[in-house]
């Protein structure tokens, strides 16, 4: 991905998601734990390099790139690579004074890692609808300006919180981030939202 393309998804997806996470932390918590967000150009470049490291590794290990590099990494894996990069580059910092931290603060960077990929996937899906000439779906998704997530079984964490906790657990337990499996999860989140929109307009599809 060229840097100009990355800068666009940074502005319209990644930095935006980080800002939403930061805004979700109360002013009192922000002050008490010195919570800061870094959405600077330098952070964008830093994350781009980390993203490129993750993407390069995925491309080398798992992809048949074709004779002339004609096979590209698809959007879901690109989004998963962004999550993988955000597990290594933290956009939100806070003071660790020794006492136990509130979960909202500790989870902040995992929220960014999850949401940034979702925010970028929204851009890809919008563009896909436009590319297909499916402006009814394009306008519907644009006006929704959010994704729906499946209801979880009784007693479980809500879907989004469960995924954020899973990112945190795997990271803290030292498990390698699995880009391919994560990309598959993103595929199903996208598919779920496409289905909801198709059903609304009773559109036949594959």
């Amino acid at each position, binding site marked *: 991905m060229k840097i100009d393309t990355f800068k666009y998804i940074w502005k319209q*997806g990644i930095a935006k998601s980080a800002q939403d996470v930061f805004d979700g932390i109360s002013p009192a918590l922000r002050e008490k734990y010195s919570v800061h967000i870094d959405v600077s150009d330098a952070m964008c470049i830093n994350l781009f390099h980390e993203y490129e490291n993750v993407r390069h590794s995925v491309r080398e290990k*798992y992809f048949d790139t074709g004779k002339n590099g004609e*096979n590209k990494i698809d959007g879901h894996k690109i989004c998963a690579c962004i999550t993988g990069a955000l597990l290594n580059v933290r956009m939100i910092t806070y003071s660790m004074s020794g006492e136990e931290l509130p979960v909202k603060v500790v989870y902040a960077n995992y929220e960014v890692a999850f949401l940034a990929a979702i925010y970028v996937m929204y851009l890809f899906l*919008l563009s896909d609808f436009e590319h297909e000439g499916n402006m009814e779906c394009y306008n519907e998704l644009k006006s929704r300006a959010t*994704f729906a997530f499946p209801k979880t079984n009784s007693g479980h964490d809500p879907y989004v*919180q469960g995924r*954020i906790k899973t990112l945190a657990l795997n990271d803290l337990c030292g498990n390698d981030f699995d880009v391919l499996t994560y990309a598959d999860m993103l595929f199903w989140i996208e598919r779920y939202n496409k289905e909801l929109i198709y059903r609304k307009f009773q559109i036949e599809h594959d």
Partner: protein
Amino acid sequence: MLSKVREVFTKEYREETNYRELAFQMLQNFRLKNTSESVEDKIKRLSDKNFVSEFKVDVGEY
């Protein structure tokens, strides 16, 4: 340590090693392919018209 040395002389270990060596030679066949539109083109459609995202997902309270 001795148990590990014993293990590598087992039939099971040799079979597993053979499988790993054979499968690794076939790695090219397992590799993923994708010839769909590039993300550069996807994003260009939006950036060319200066699309500004209003997207938001609410995480909720833990």
